[in-house]
Protein backbone atom coordinates (compact mmCIF):
# COMPACT_ATOMS: atom_id res chain seq x y z
CA UNK A 1 0.00 0.00 0.00
CA UNK A 2 1.65 3.19 -1.19
CA UNK A 3 -1.38 5.29 -0.33
CA UNK A 4 -0.60 7.90 2.32
CA UNK A 5 -3.79 9.43 3.68
CA UNK A 6 -6.28 11.40 1.68
CA UNK A 7 -6.78 15.11 1.35
CA UNK A 8 -6.94 17.85 -1.22
CA UNK A 9 -3.29 18.76 -1.64
CA UNK A 10 -1.60 19.59 -4.97
CA UNK A 11 -0.64 16.50 -6.91
CA UNK A 12 3.10 16.71 -7.62
CA UNK A 13 3.49 13.72 -9.95
CA UNK A 14 4.87 13.67 -13.48
CA UNK A 15 2.60 14.99 -16.21
CA UNK A 16 4.18 15.23 -19.68
CA UNK A 17 2.56 17.36 -22.36
CA UNK A 18 1.87 15.24 -25.47
CA UNK A 19 0.04 17.97 -27.42
CA UNK A 20 -2.39 20.83 -26.75
CA UNK A 21 -5.05 18.43 -25.43
CA UNK A 22 -3.21 15.36 -24.12
CA UNK A 23 -1.02 14.77 -21.05
CA UNK A 24 0.84 11.64 -20.10
CA UNK A 25 1.59 10.07 -16.71
CA UNK A 26 4.48 7.77 -17.71
CA UNK A 27 4.17 4.21 -16.45
CA UNK A 28 7.49 4.67 -14.69
CA UNK A 29 5.76 7.09 -12.30
CA UNK A 30 4.81 4.29 -9.95
CA UNK A 31 6.01 0.70 -9.80
CA UNK A 32 3.09 -1.54 -10.73
CA UNK A 33 1.62 0.61 -13.50
CA UNK A 34 1.20 -1.58 -16.58
CA UNK A 35 0.51 1.25 -19.04
CA UNK A 36 0.82 5.03 -19.24
CA UNK A 37 -1.95 7.27 -18.02
CA UNK A 38 -3.32 9.79 -20.52
CA UNK A 39 -5.41 12.79 -19.44
CA UNK A 40 -7.33 14.94 -21.95
CA UNK A 41 -7.08 18.57 -20.91
CA UNK A 42 -5.79 21.96 -22.00
CA UNK A 43 -3.02 23.90 -20.29
CA UNK A 44 -5.41 25.90 -18.10
CA UNK A 45 -7.31 22.83 -16.89
CA UNK A 46 -4.19 20.97 -15.84
CA UNK A 47 -3.80 23.36 -12.90
CA UNK A 48 -7.24 22.39 -11.60
CA UNK A 49 -6.62 18.72 -12.32
CA UNK A 50 -3.49 18.85 -10.18
CA UNK A 51 -5.44 20.30 -7.26
CA UNK A 52 -6.84 16.97 -6.05
CA UNK A 53 -5.95 13.26 -6.06
CA UNK A 54 -7.52 12.46 -9.45
CA UNK A 55 -4.21 12.07 -11.37
CA UNK A 56 -3.00 9.59 -8.72
CA UNK A 57 -6.18 7.62 -9.37
CA UNK A 58 -5.40 7.57 -13.12
CA UNK A 59 -2.04 6.03 -12.21
CA UNK A 60 -3.69 3.53 -9.83
CA UNK A 61 -6.10 2.32 -12.54
CA UNK A 62 -3.05 1.52 -14.71
CA UNK A 63 -2.33 -1.36 -12.24
CA UNK A 64 -5.38 -3.37 -13.40
CA UNK A 65 -4.41 -6.74 -14.91
CA UNK A 66 -5.05 -6.93 -18.65
CA UNK A 67 -5.33 -3.14 -19.15
CA UNK A 68 -4.55 -2.18 -22.78
CA UNK A 69 -3.25 1.03 -24.38
CA UNK A 70 -3.67 3.61 -21.57
CA UNK A 71 -5.46 4.41 -18.36
CA UNK A 72 -7.51 7.33 -19.72
CA UNK A 73 -9.17 10.35 -18.17
CA UNK A 74 -11.52 12.78 -19.87
CA UNK A 75 -11.30 16.57 -19.30
CA UNK A 76 -14.12 16.49 -16.73
CA UNK A 77 -11.81 14.37 -14.55
CA UNK A 78 -12.03 14.83 -10.80
CA UNK A 79 -11.31 12.90 -7.66
CA UNK A 80 -13.58 9.89 -7.13
CA UNK A 81 -13.05 6.68 -5.16
CA UNK A 82 -10.93 3.98 -6.82
CA UNK A 83 -11.28 5.21 -10.41
CA UNK A 84 -11.25 8.96 -11.02
CA UNK A 85 -14.55 10.38 -12.27
CA UNK A 86 -13.98 10.73 -16.02
CA UNK A 87 -11.88 7.54 -16.10
CA UNK A 88 -11.84 5.04 -18.97
CA UNK A 89 -9.99 1.72 -18.85
CA UNK A 90 -10.23 -1.31 -21.12
CA UNK A 91 -8.94 -4.76 -20.21
CA UNK A 92 -8.25 -7.65 -22.60
CA UNK A 93 -10.62 -10.42 -21.56
CA UNK A 94 -8.60 -13.19 -23.25
CA UNK A 95 -5.41 -12.17 -21.43
CA UNK A 96 -6.78 -12.30 -17.89
CA UNK A 97 -8.35 -8.83 -18.09
CA UNK A 98 -10.32 -7.87 -15.00
CA UNK A 99 -13.58 -6.13 -14.26
CA UNK A 100 -13.71 -3.78 -11.27
CA UNK A 101 -17.01 -2.74 -9.66
CA UNK A 102 -15.19 0.45 -8.59
CA UNK A 103 -14.62 1.17 -12.29
CA UNK A 104 -18.38 1.43 -12.74
CA UNK A 105 -19.29 2.97 -9.40
CA UNK A 106 -22.23 2.68 -7.03
CA UNK A 107 -24.67 4.39 -9.35
CA UNK A 108 -24.54 1.75 -12.10
CA UNK A 109 -25.75 3.20 -15.42
CA UNK A 110 -26.09 6.66 -14.11
CA UNK A 111 -26.85 8.35 -17.39
CA UNK A 112 -28.73 11.01 -19.25
CA UNK A 113 -31.38 11.27 -21.93
CA UNK A 114 -32.34 14.13 -24.20
CA UNK A 115 -35.92 14.70 -25.32
CA UNK A 116 -36.95 17.21 -27.97
CA UNK A 117 -40.23 19.12 -28.19
CA UNK A 118 -42.09 21.11 -30.83
CA UNK A 119 -42.09 24.05 -28.42
CA UNK A 120 -40.03 27.20 -28.72
CA UNK A 121 -38.60 29.15 -25.80
CA UNK A 122 -41.33 31.75 -26.34
CA UNK A 123 -44.01 29.08 -25.81
CA UNK A 124 -42.51 27.93 -22.52
CA UNK A 125 -41.51 31.24 -20.87
CA UNK A 126 -45.06 32.34 -19.95
CA UNK A 127 -45.78 28.94 -18.39
CA UNK A 128 -42.34 28.20 -16.95
CA UNK A 129 -43.45 28.50 -13.33
CA UNK A 130 -46.42 26.15 -13.85
CA UNK A 131 -44.18 23.71 -15.68
CA UNK A 132 -41.45 23.61 -13.03
CA UNK A 133 -44.04 23.27 -10.24
CA UNK A 134 -45.77 20.45 -12.15
CA UNK A 135 -42.50 18.57 -12.71
CA UNK A 136 -41.51 19.08 -9.08
CA UNK A 137 -44.89 17.86 -7.93
CA UNK A 138 -45.22 14.85 -10.23
CA UNK A 139 -41.69 13.45 -10.08
CA UNK A 140 -40.61 11.94 -6.76
CA UNK A 141 -37.17 13.23 -5.74
CA UNK A 142 -34.94 13.57 -2.73
CA UNK A 143 -33.36 11.22 -0.19
CA UNK A 144 -34.94 7.75 -0.26
CA UNK A 145 -37.88 8.90 -2.40
CA UNK A 146 -40.42 6.29 -3.48
CA UNK A 147 -42.33 6.16 -6.74
CA UNK A 148 -45.93 5.46 -7.72
CA UNK A 149 -44.94 2.76 -10.18
CA UNK A 150 -45.24 -0.36 -7.98
CA UNK A 151 -43.97 -3.71 -9.22
CA UNK A 152 -44.33 -7.24 -7.81
CA UNK A 153 -41.28 -9.41 -7.12
CA UNK A 154 -41.75 -11.62 -10.19
CA UNK A 155 -42.26 -8.61 -12.44
CA UNK A 156 -39.18 -6.93 -10.95
CA UNK A 157 -37.05 -9.84 -12.20
CA UNK A 158 -38.50 -9.35 -15.69
CA UNK A 159 -37.78 -5.64 -15.49
CA UNK A 160 -34.12 -6.37 -14.68
CA UNK A 161 -33.84 -8.42 -17.87
CA UNK A 162 -36.03 -6.32 -20.19
CA UNK A 163 -35.10 -2.86 -18.90
CA UNK A 164 -36.83 0.03 -20.66
CA UNK A 165 -38.79 -2.44 -22.83
CA UNK A 166 -40.68 -3.66 -19.75
CA UNK A 167 -41.68 -0.08 -19.00
CA UNK A 168 -42.78 0.63 -22.58
CA UNK A 169 -44.74 -2.65 -22.74
CA UNK A 170 -46.61 -1.55 -19.61
CA UNK A 171 -47.77 1.66 -21.23
CA UNK A 172 -45.11 4.14 -20.09
CA UNK A 173 -43.69 5.17 -23.45
CA UNK A 174 -43.47 4.30 -27.12
CA UNK A 175 -41.70 1.54 -29.03
CA UNK A 176 -39.47 4.04 -30.84
CA UNK A 177 -38.10 5.26 -27.49
CA UNK A 178 -36.22 1.96 -27.29
CA UNK A 179 -34.56 2.41 -30.66
CA UNK A 180 -33.01 5.65 -29.44
CA UNK A 181 -31.69 4.27 -26.14
CA UNK A 182 -28.17 2.86 -25.80
CA UNK A 183 -28.45 -0.97 -26.02
CA UNK A 184 -32.19 -0.47 -26.72
CA UNK A 185 -32.59 0.10 -22.99
CA UNK A 186 -31.68 -3.50 -22.08
CA UNK A 187 -28.17 -4.87 -22.14
CA UNK A 188 -28.06 -8.60 -22.90
CA UNK A 189 -26.83 -11.13 -20.32
CA UNK A 190 -28.51 -9.69 -17.21
CA UNK A 191 -28.72 -12.38 -14.53
CA UNK A 192 -31.45 -11.73 -11.92
CA UNK A 193 -30.08 -14.62 -9.82
CA UNK A 194 -26.85 -12.67 -9.32
CA UNK A 195 -28.85 -9.92 -7.58
CA UNK A 196 -29.24 -10.34 -3.81
CA UNK A 197 -32.52 -10.12 -1.94
CA UNK A 198 -31.20 -6.96 -0.30
CA UNK A 199 -30.54 -5.30 -3.65
CA UNK A 200 -34.10 -6.12 -4.75
CA UNK A 201 -35.34 -4.67 -1.50
CA UNK A 202 -33.40 -1.42 -1.92
CA UNK A 203 -34.58 -1.03 -5.50
CA UNK A 204 -38.22 -1.72 -4.72
CA UNK A 205 -40.61 1.15 -5.33
CA UNK A 206 -37.84 3.39 -6.63
CA UNK A 207 -38.64 3.08 -10.34
CA UNK A 208 -39.67 6.51 -11.57
CA UNK A 209 -37.79 8.40 -8.86
CA UNK A 210 -35.12 10.93 -9.60
CA UNK A 211 -32.88 10.45 -6.56
CA UNK A 212 -30.85 13.28 -5.07
CA UNK A 213 -27.48 15.00 -5.32
CA UNK A 214 -26.58 15.85 -8.90
CA UNK A 215 -29.58 14.12 -10.46
CA UNK A 216 -31.98 16.46 -12.24
CA UNK A 217 -34.57 17.16 -14.88
CA UNK A 218 -33.82 20.28 -16.89
CA UNK A 219 -35.97 22.16 -19.39
CA UNK A 220 -33.66 23.98 -21.78
CA UNK A 221 -33.52 25.92 -25.04
CA UNK A 222 -31.05 25.38 -27.88
CA UNK A 223 -28.95 28.53 -28.18
CA UNK A 224 -26.27 27.55 -30.68
CA UNK A 225 -26.01 25.12 -33.59
CA UNK A 226 -22.51 24.00 -34.66
CA UNK A 227 -23.34 21.26 -37.21
CA UNK A 228 -26.50 22.16 -39.07
CA UNK A 229 -26.65 19.01 -41.17
CA UNK A 230 -26.40 16.75 -38.11
CA UNK A 231 -28.83 18.90 -36.11
CA UNK A 232 -31.33 18.59 -38.99
CA UNK A 233 -31.11 14.80 -38.85
CA UNK A 234 -31.69 14.95 -35.07
CA UNK A 235 -34.61 17.35 -35.72
CA UNK A 236 -33.07 20.16 -33.68
CA UNK A 237 -32.87 23.91 -34.33
CA UNK A 238 -32.02 27.12 -32.46
CA UNK A 239 -34.67 28.28 -30.00
CA UNK A 240 -36.22 24.83 -29.69
CA UNK A 241 -37.03 23.52 -26.21
CA UNK A 242 -35.41 20.25 -25.10
CA UNK A 243 -35.40 18.31 -21.83
CA UNK A 244 -32.55 16.47 -20.15
CA UNK A 245 -33.06 13.75 -17.55
CA UNK A 246 -30.13 12.65 -15.38
CA UNK A 247 -30.62 9.67 -13.06
CA UNK A 248 -29.40 6.13 -12.43
CA UNK A 249 -30.14 2.77 -10.83
CA UNK A 250 -31.04 4.11 -7.39
CA UNK A 251 -30.68 1.81 -4.35
CA UNK A 252 -30.53 -1.36 -6.45
CA UNK A 253 -27.28 -0.35 -8.14
CA UNK A 254 -25.74 0.98 -4.91
CA UNK A 255 -26.37 -2.31 -3.11
CA UNK A 256 -25.00 -4.41 -6.01
CA UNK A 257 -21.78 -2.37 -6.19
CA UNK A 258 -21.44 -2.49 -2.43
CA UNK A 259 -21.74 -6.28 -2.21
CA UNK A 260 -19.53 -7.10 -5.18
CA UNK A 261 -16.83 -4.57 -4.18
CA UNK A 262 -16.65 -6.33 -0.84
CA UNK A 263 -16.51 -9.82 -2.39
CA UNK A 264 -13.83 -8.77 -4.84
CA UNK A 265 -11.45 -7.69 -2.09
CA UNK A 266 -11.13 -11.43 -1.40
CA UNK A 267 -10.42 -11.97 -5.15
CA UNK A 268 -7.27 -9.83 -4.93
CA UNK A 269 -5.30 -12.54 -3.14
CA UNK A 270 -7.16 -15.39 -4.84
CA UNK A 271 -6.14 -14.19 -8.32
CA UNK A 272 -2.88 -12.49 -7.32
CA UNK A 273 -4.07 -8.99 -8.26
CA UNK A 274 -2.00 -6.05 -7.02
CA UNK A 275 -3.83 -2.71 -6.83
CA UNK A 276 -2.95 0.26 -4.61
CA UNK A 277 -6.51 0.99 -3.47
CA UNK A 278 -9.10 -1.51 -2.23
CA UNK A 279 -11.83 0.31 -4.11
CA UNK A 280 -10.09 -1.01 -7.26
CA UNK A 281 -10.81 -4.58 -6.13
CA UNK A 282 -11.44 -6.68 -9.21
CA UNK A 283 -11.64 -10.19 -10.65
CA UNK A 284 -10.91 -11.63 -14.09
CA UNK A 285 -13.90 -11.08 -16.41
CA UNK A 286 -13.89 -14.83 -17.11
CA UNK A 287 -13.82 -15.89 -13.42
CA UNK A 288 -17.03 -16.94 -11.60
CA UNK A 289 -16.85 -13.72 -9.55
CA UNK A 290 -16.33 -11.54 -12.64
CA UNK A 291 -19.22 -13.18 -14.47
CA UNK A 292 -21.55 -12.87 -11.47
CA UNK A 293 -20.73 -9.18 -11.09
CA UNK A 294 -21.35 -8.45 -14.77
CA UNK A 295 -24.65 -10.39 -14.63
CA UNK A 296 -25.77 -8.29 -11.66
CA UNK A 297 -24.35 -5.03 -13.06
CA UNK A 298 -26.39 -5.54 -16.24
CA UNK A 299 -29.55 -5.93 -14.11
CA UNK A 300 -28.82 -2.58 -12.48
CA UNK A 301 -28.07 -1.03 -15.88
CA UNK A 302 -31.43 -2.24 -17.18
CA UNK A 303 -33.14 -0.97 -14.04
CA UNK A 304 -31.61 2.47 -14.70
CA UNK A 305 -32.87 2.52 -18.30
CA UNK A 306 -36.31 1.51 -17.01
CA UNK A 307 -36.08 4.30 -14.45
CA UNK A 308 -35.19 6.99 -16.99
CA UNK A 309 -38.00 5.70 -19.22
CA UNK A 310 -40.44 6.12 -16.28
CA UNK A 311 -39.09 9.60 -15.60
CA UNK A 312 -39.56 10.52 -19.27
CA UNK A 313 -43.14 9.28 -19.12
CA UNK A 314 -43.84 11.44 -16.04
CA UNK A 315 -42.18 14.40 -17.79
CA UNK A 316 -44.28 13.96 -20.93
CA UNK A 317 -47.44 13.78 -18.82
CA UNK A 318 -46.51 16.97 -16.95
CA UNK A 319 -45.96 18.81 -20.25
CA UNK A 320 -49.28 17.56 -21.66
CA UNK A 321 -51.06 18.81 -18.55
CA UNK A 322 -49.39 22.23 -18.39
CA UNK A 323 -49.61 23.03 -22.12
CA UNK A 324 -52.94 21.26 -22.56
CA UNK A 325 -51.58 19.63 -25.69
CA UNK A 326 -51.57 16.04 -26.95
CA UNK A 327 -48.42 13.96 -27.46
CA UNK A 328 -48.44 14.47 -31.25
CA UNK A 329 -48.49 18.26 -31.02
CA UNK A 330 -45.85 18.33 -28.29
CA UNK A 331 -43.56 16.07 -30.35
CA UNK A 332 -41.62 14.91 -27.28
CA UNK A 333 -39.41 12.36 -29.05
CA UNK A 334 -36.34 10.84 -27.46
CA UNK A 335 -33.17 12.05 -29.20
CA UNK A 336 -30.98 9.53 -27.34
CA UNK A 337 -30.15 8.02 -23.94
CA UNK A 338 -26.58 7.29 -22.82
CA UNK A 339 -25.02 5.49 -19.86
CA UNK A 340 -21.99 7.14 -18.25
CA UNK A 341 -21.18 4.70 -15.40
CA UNK A 342 -20.88 1.25 -16.92
CA UNK A 343 -18.61 -1.62 -18.02
CA UNK A 344 -19.22 -3.04 -21.50
CA UNK A 345 -17.80 -6.01 -23.38
CA UNK A 346 -16.90 -4.58 -26.80
CA UNK A 347 -14.71 -5.44 -29.80
CA UNK A 348 -11.86 -2.97 -30.46
CA UNK A 349 -8.67 -2.96 -32.49
CA UNK A 350 -5.53 -2.80 -30.36
CA UNK A 351 -2.14 -2.64 -32.11
CA UNK A 352 -3.74 -3.88 -35.34
CA UNK A 353 -5.43 -6.86 -33.67
CA UNK A 354 -9.14 -7.18 -33.01
CA UNK A 355 -9.74 -7.92 -29.33
CA UNK A 356 -12.63 -8.44 -26.94
CA UNK A 357 -12.29 -5.84 -24.21
CA UNK A 358 -14.08 -4.97 -21.01
CA UNK A 359 -14.39 -1.18 -21.29
CA UNK A 360 -15.00 0.61 -17.98
CA UNK A 361 -16.52 4.06 -18.33
CA UNK A 362 -16.67 5.77 -14.93
CA UNK A 363 -18.11 9.19 -15.62
CA UNK A 364 -17.43 8.82 -19.34
CA UNK A 365 -19.74 8.31 -22.32
CA UNK A 366 -19.62 5.81 -25.14
CA UNK A 367 -19.23 7.72 -28.43
CA UNK A 368 -19.56 5.44 -31.47
CA UNK A 369 -18.43 6.94 -34.80
CA UNK A 370 -20.51 7.32 -37.98
CA UNK A 371 -21.23 3.98 -39.63
CA UNK A 372 -21.12 1.93 -36.44
CA UNK A 373 -23.49 -1.07 -36.78
CA UNK A 374 -24.97 -0.62 -33.28
CA UNK A 375 -26.37 2.82 -34.08
CA UNK A 376 -30.02 3.33 -35.08
CA UNK A 377 -30.36 3.57 -38.88
CA UNK A 378 -31.22 7.27 -38.71
CA UNK A 379 -27.95 8.05 -36.88
CA UNK A 380 -25.68 5.81 -38.95
CA UNK A 381 -24.44 8.85 -40.89
CA UNK A 382 -24.09 11.25 -37.95
CA UNK A 383 -22.41 9.06 -35.36
CA UNK A 384 -23.79 8.42 -31.88
CA UNK A 385 -25.42 11.34 -30.07
CA UNK A 386 -23.48 12.11 -26.87
CA UNK A 387 -25.34 14.08 -24.21
CA UNK A 388 -23.23 16.32 -21.96
CA UNK A 389 -25.07 18.06 -19.12
CA UNK A 390 -23.33 21.10 -17.65
CA UNK A 391 -24.13 22.96 -14.45
CA UNK A 392 -27.57 24.47 -13.84
CA UNK A 393 -26.50 28.05 -14.63
CA UNK A 394 -24.53 27.73 -17.85
CA UNK A 395 -24.82 25.28 -20.75
CA UNK A 396 -25.25 21.68 -21.81
CA UNK A 397 -24.23 20.09 -25.09
CA UNK A 398 -25.14 17.53 -27.67
CA UNK A 399 -22.08 16.00 -29.36
CA UNK A 400 -21.53 13.12 -31.75
CA UNK A 401 -18.99 10.30 -31.76
CA UNK A 402 -16.08 10.45 -34.21
CA UNK A 403 -13.59 8.05 -35.74
CA UNK A 404 -10.92 9.98 -33.82
CA UNK A 405 -12.26 8.45 -30.61
CA UNK A 406 -10.73 5.12 -31.62
CA UNK A 407 -7.88 6.00 -29.24
CA UNK A 408 -10.33 6.21 -26.30
CA UNK A 409 -12.23 3.00 -27.16
CA UNK A 410 -14.89 5.37 -28.53
CA UNK A 411 -15.38 7.20 -25.27
CA UNK A 412 -15.66 10.87 -24.37
CA UNK A 413 -16.50 13.14 -21.42
CA UNK A 414 -19.79 12.98 -19.48
CA UNK A 415 -20.38 16.42 -18.00
CA UNK A 416 -18.74 19.53 -16.65
CA UNK A 417 -16.95 17.80 -13.77
CA UNK A 418 -16.82 19.17 -10.27
CA UNK A 419 -14.29 21.81 -9.32
CA UNK A 420 -15.18 22.45 -5.68
CA UNK A 421 -15.97 20.01 -2.90
CA UNK A 422 -19.54 20.08 -1.68
CA UNK A 423 -18.55 21.64 1.65
CA UNK A 424 -16.53 24.34 -0.16
CA UNK A 425 -19.54 25.07 -2.38
CA UNK A 426 -21.81 25.39 0.66
CA UNK A 427 -19.31 27.76 2.31
CA UNK A 428 -19.00 29.82 -0.87
CA UNK A 429 -22.79 30.12 -1.10
CA UNK A 430 -23.42 30.95 2.56
CA UNK A 431 -25.82 33.88 2.88
CA UNK A 432 -26.71 33.74 -0.82
CA UNK A 433 -29.84 32.44 -2.45
CA UNK A 434 -28.76 30.36 -5.42
CA UNK A 435 -32.33 30.08 -6.65
CA UNK A 436 -32.73 33.88 -6.65
CA UNK A 437 -29.39 34.37 -8.40
CA UNK A 438 -30.45 31.94 -11.11
CA UNK A 439 -33.87 33.57 -11.36
CA UNK A 440 -32.24 36.86 -12.36
CA UNK A 441 -30.71 34.92 -15.26
CA UNK A 442 -34.15 33.62 -16.21
CA UNK A 443 -33.61 30.15 -14.77
CA UNK A 444 -36.09 28.67 -12.32
CA UNK A 445 -34.79 25.93 -10.00
CA UNK A 446 -36.51 23.80 -7.38
CA UNK A 447 -35.02 21.25 -5.02
CA UNK A 448 -36.23 19.38 -1.96
CA UNK A 449 -33.01 20.45 -0.26
CA UNK A 450 -31.52 23.93 0.13
CA UNK A 451 -28.06 22.38 0.62
CA UNK A 452 -28.37 20.62 -2.74
CA UNK A 453 -28.75 23.96 -4.51
CA UNK A 454 -25.58 25.30 -2.87
CA UNK A 455 -23.64 22.08 -3.50
CA UNK A 456 -24.73 22.16 -7.12
CA UNK A 457 -24.12 25.92 -7.61
CA UNK A 458 -22.72 26.67 -11.08
CA UNK A 459 -19.36 27.84 -9.68
CA UNK A 460 -18.81 24.39 -8.07
CA UNK A 461 -18.34 22.99 -11.58
CA UNK A 462 -15.82 23.42 -14.35
CA UNK A 463 -17.13 25.41 -17.31
CA UNK A 464 -18.65 22.78 -19.57
CA UNK A 465 -17.79 24.97 -22.58
CA UNK A 466 -14.10 24.41 -21.83
CA UNK A 467 -14.54 20.67 -21.22
CA UNK A 468 -16.35 20.26 -24.52
CA UNK A 469 -13.73 22.47 -26.21
CA UNK A 470 -11.10 19.88 -25.26
CA UNK A 471 -12.92 16.77 -26.53
CA UNK A 472 -13.84 18.61 -29.74
CA UNK A 473 -10.30 19.96 -30.11
CA UNK A 474 -8.76 16.54 -29.46
CA UNK A 475 -11.10 15.10 -32.10
CA UNK A 476 -12.70 12.46 -29.85
CA UNK A 477 -16.18 13.94 -30.39
CA UNK A 478 -17.83 16.79 -32.23
CA UNK A 479 -20.10 19.63 -31.09
CA UNK A 480 -23.58 19.60 -32.64
CA UNK A 481 -25.51 22.08 -30.52
CA UNK A 482 -25.54 23.87 -27.19
CA UNK A 483 -28.41 24.30 -24.76
CA UNK A 484 -29.10 26.83 -22.00
CA UNK A 485 -31.27 26.03 -18.94
CA UNK A 486 -34.76 27.47 -18.43
CA UNK A 487 -36.06 25.39 -15.51
CA UNK A 488 -34.40 22.76 -13.31
CA UNK A 489 -35.70 20.18 -10.82
CA UNK A 490 -32.97 18.90 -8.51
CA UNK A 491 -33.13 15.88 -6.22
Amino acid at each position, binding site marked *: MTYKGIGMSMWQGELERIDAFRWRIPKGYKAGMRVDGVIYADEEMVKDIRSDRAPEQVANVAFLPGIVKHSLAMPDIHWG*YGFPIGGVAATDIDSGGVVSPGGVGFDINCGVRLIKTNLKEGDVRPKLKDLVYALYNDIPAGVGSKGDIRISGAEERKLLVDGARWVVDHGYGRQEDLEYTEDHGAIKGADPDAVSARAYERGKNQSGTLGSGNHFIEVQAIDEIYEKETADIFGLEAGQVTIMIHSGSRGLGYQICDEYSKDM*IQCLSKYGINVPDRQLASAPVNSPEGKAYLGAMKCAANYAWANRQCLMHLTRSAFEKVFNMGPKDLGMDLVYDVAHNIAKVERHTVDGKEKTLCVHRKGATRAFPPGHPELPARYRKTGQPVIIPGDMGRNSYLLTGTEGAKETFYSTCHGAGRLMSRSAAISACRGRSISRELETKGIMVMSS*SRDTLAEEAPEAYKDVNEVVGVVDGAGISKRVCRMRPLGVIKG
Partner: protein
Amino acid sequence: MVKSNHMERYEQFPHTADIGVRVYGKDMKELFENAAFAMFDIIADLQGIDAPITKNFTLDAPDHEQLLVVWLDELLYNFYTKSIIFSRFEVKELTDGCIKATASGRPVGENRNRLKTEIKAATYHGLKIEKTDSGYKVEIVFDI
Protein backbone atom coordinates in the same frame (compact mmCIF):
# COMPACT_ATOMS: atom_id res chain seq x y z
CA MET B 1 -12.76 24.64 5.21
CA VAL B 2 -12.69 21.78 7.67
CA LYS B 3 -15.88 21.65 9.67
CA SER B 4 -15.88 20.32 13.22
CA ASN B 5 -18.87 18.43 14.52
CA HIS B 6 -20.12 17.36 17.90
CA MET B 7 -17.11 17.50 20.22
CA GLU B 8 -14.49 16.19 17.84
CA ARG B 9 -16.17 12.87 17.17
CA TYR B 10 -15.50 13.55 13.52
CA GLU B 11 -14.78 16.29 11.03
CA GLN B 12 -15.46 16.61 7.34
CA PHE B 13 -12.58 17.05 4.96
CA PRO B 14 -13.03 18.35 1.42
CA HIS B 15 -13.46 15.82 -1.35
CA THR B 16 -14.30 17.03 -4.85
CA ALA B 17 -17.22 14.78 -5.71
CA ASP B 18 -18.20 13.06 -2.51
CA ILE B 19 -17.99 13.56 1.26
CA GLY B 20 -14.92 12.67 3.28
CA VAL B 21 -14.92 12.35 7.06
CA ARG B 22 -12.05 12.00 9.52
CA VAL B 23 -13.36 10.07 12.51
CA TYR B 24 -11.75 9.83 15.96
CA GLY B 25 -12.20 7.41 18.86
CA LYS B 26 -10.39 6.84 22.15
CA ASP B 27 -10.57 3.14 21.35
CA MET B 28 -11.65 1.00 18.42
CA LYS B 29 -15.19 0.61 19.76
CA GLU B 30 -15.67 4.36 19.97
CA LEU B 31 -14.18 4.77 16.50
CA PHE B 32 -16.88 2.50 15.08
CA GLU B 33 -19.61 4.30 17.03
CA ASN B 34 -18.43 7.72 15.90
CA ALA B 35 -18.12 6.61 12.27
CA ALA B 36 -21.78 5.54 12.33
CA PHE B 37 -22.73 8.81 13.99
CA ALA B 38 -20.82 10.79 11.35
CA MET B 39 -22.66 9.00 8.56
CA PHE B 40 -26.12 9.68 9.99
CA ASP B 41 -25.15 13.25 10.91
CA ILE B 42 -24.58 13.76 7.15
CA ILE B 43 -27.80 11.98 6.16
CA ALA B 44 -30.08 13.84 8.57
CA ASP B 45 -30.33 16.64 11.10
CA LEU B 46 -29.85 14.69 14.34
CA GLN B 47 -30.24 17.68 16.68
CA GLY B 48 -32.75 16.75 19.39
CA ILE B 49 -34.00 13.57 17.71
CA ASP B 50 -34.90 10.74 20.07
CA ALA B 51 -34.19 7.06 19.56
CA PRO B 52 -37.00 4.79 20.76
CA ILE B 53 -36.18 1.82 18.50
CA THR B 54 -33.09 -0.32 19.07
CA LYS B 55 -31.70 -2.94 16.69
CA ASN B 56 -28.96 -5.50 17.36
CA PHE B 57 -26.21 -6.25 14.91
CA THR B 58 -23.64 -9.04 14.72
CA LEU B 59 -21.33 -8.71 11.73
CA ASP B 60 -18.00 -10.08 10.60
CA ALA B 61 -15.31 -9.35 8.02
CA PRO B 62 -11.68 -10.38 7.39
CA ASP B 63 -10.16 -7.24 9.00
CA HIS B 64 -11.08 -4.06 10.87
CA GLU B 65 -11.16 -1.82 7.81
CA GLN B 66 -13.52 -4.11 5.95
CA LEU B 67 -15.57 -4.57 9.12
CA LEU B 68 -15.98 -0.79 9.39
CA VAL B 69 -17.43 -0.60 5.85
CA VAL B 70 -19.63 -3.66 6.50
CA TRP B 71 -20.96 -2.00 9.68
CA LEU B 72 -21.70 1.30 7.95
CA ASP B 73 -23.29 -0.34 4.92
CA GLU B 74 -25.44 -2.54 7.19
CA LEU B 75 -26.77 0.59 8.88
CA LEU B 76 -27.37 2.25 5.49
CA TYR B 77 -29.28 -0.79 4.27
CA ASN B 78 -31.46 -0.59 7.39
CA PHE B 79 -31.99 3.13 6.93
CA TYR B 80 -33.18 2.73 3.34
CA THR B 81 -35.28 -0.41 3.76
CA LYS B 82 -36.61 -0.05 7.33
CA SER B 83 -36.74 3.76 7.21
CA ILE B 84 -35.04 4.36 10.56
CA ILE B 85 -32.87 7.40 11.26
CA PHE B 86 -30.24 6.03 13.65
CA SER B 87 -28.53 8.43 16.02
CA ARG B 88 -27.15 6.38 18.94
CA PHE B 89 -24.68 3.57 18.63
CA GLU B 90 -23.15 1.22 21.13
CA VAL B 91 -20.47 -1.29 20.27
CA LYS B 92 -20.68 -4.08 22.84
CA GLU B 93 -17.93 -6.30 21.53
CA LEU B 94 -15.26 -5.77 18.93
CA THR B 95 -12.73 -8.45 18.28
CA ASP B 96 -10.66 -9.08 15.19
CA GLY B 97 -13.17 -9.30 12.40
CA CYS B 98 -16.37 -9.36 14.49
CA ILE B 99 -18.65 -6.68 15.89
CA LYS B 100 -21.64 -6.93 18.22
CA ALA B 101 -23.44 -3.63 18.46
CA THR B 102 -26.76 -1.85 18.85
CA ALA B 103 -28.09 1.13 16.94
CA SER B 104 -31.04 3.17 18.13
CA GLY B 105 -33.15 5.52 16.11
CA ARG B 106 -36.54 6.85 15.11
CA PRO B 107 -38.68 6.05 12.06
CA VAL B 108 -38.34 8.54 9.22
CA GLY B 109 -42.15 9.08 9.26
CA GLU B 110 -42.84 12.67 10.26
CA ASN B 111 -39.07 13.35 10.32
CA ARG B 112 -38.77 13.46 6.52
CA ASN B 113 -37.81 17.11 6.65
CA ARG B 114 -34.76 16.19 8.73
CA LEU B 115 -33.25 14.31 5.77
CA LYS B 116 -30.36 16.16 4.12
CA THR B 117 -28.11 14.02 1.96
CA GLU B 118 -28.47 10.71 0.19
CA ILE B 119 -25.40 8.58 0.92
CA LYS B 120 -25.10 5.74 -1.60
CA ALA B 121 -22.39 3.81 0.24
CA ALA B 122 -19.23 3.92 2.32
CA THR B 123 -16.23 3.25 0.06
CA TYR B 124 -12.92 1.47 0.64
CA HIS B 125 -11.05 4.35 -1.02
CA GLY B 126 -7.87 5.07 0.97
CA LEU B 127 -9.43 3.50 4.03
CA LYS B 128 -6.90 2.93 6.78
CA ILE B 129 -7.43 2.85 10.55
CA GLU B 130 -4.50 4.57 12.25
CA LYS B 131 -3.30 4.61 15.84
CA THR B 132 -2.86 8.11 17.29
CA ASP B 133 -1.59 9.43 20.64
CA SER B 134 -5.13 9.62 21.96
CA GLY B 135 -6.65 6.55 20.33
CA TYR B 136 -7.58 5.86 16.71
CA LYS B 137 -8.57 7.75 13.60
CA VAL B 138 -9.81 6.81 10.16
CA GLU B 139 -10.69 8.68 6.96
CA ILE B 140 -13.77 7.48 5.11
CA VAL B 141 -15.12 8.62 1.73
CA PHE B 142 -18.87 8.31 1.24
CA ASP B 143 -20.30 8.18 -2.25
CA ILE B 144 -23.18 10.63 -2.44
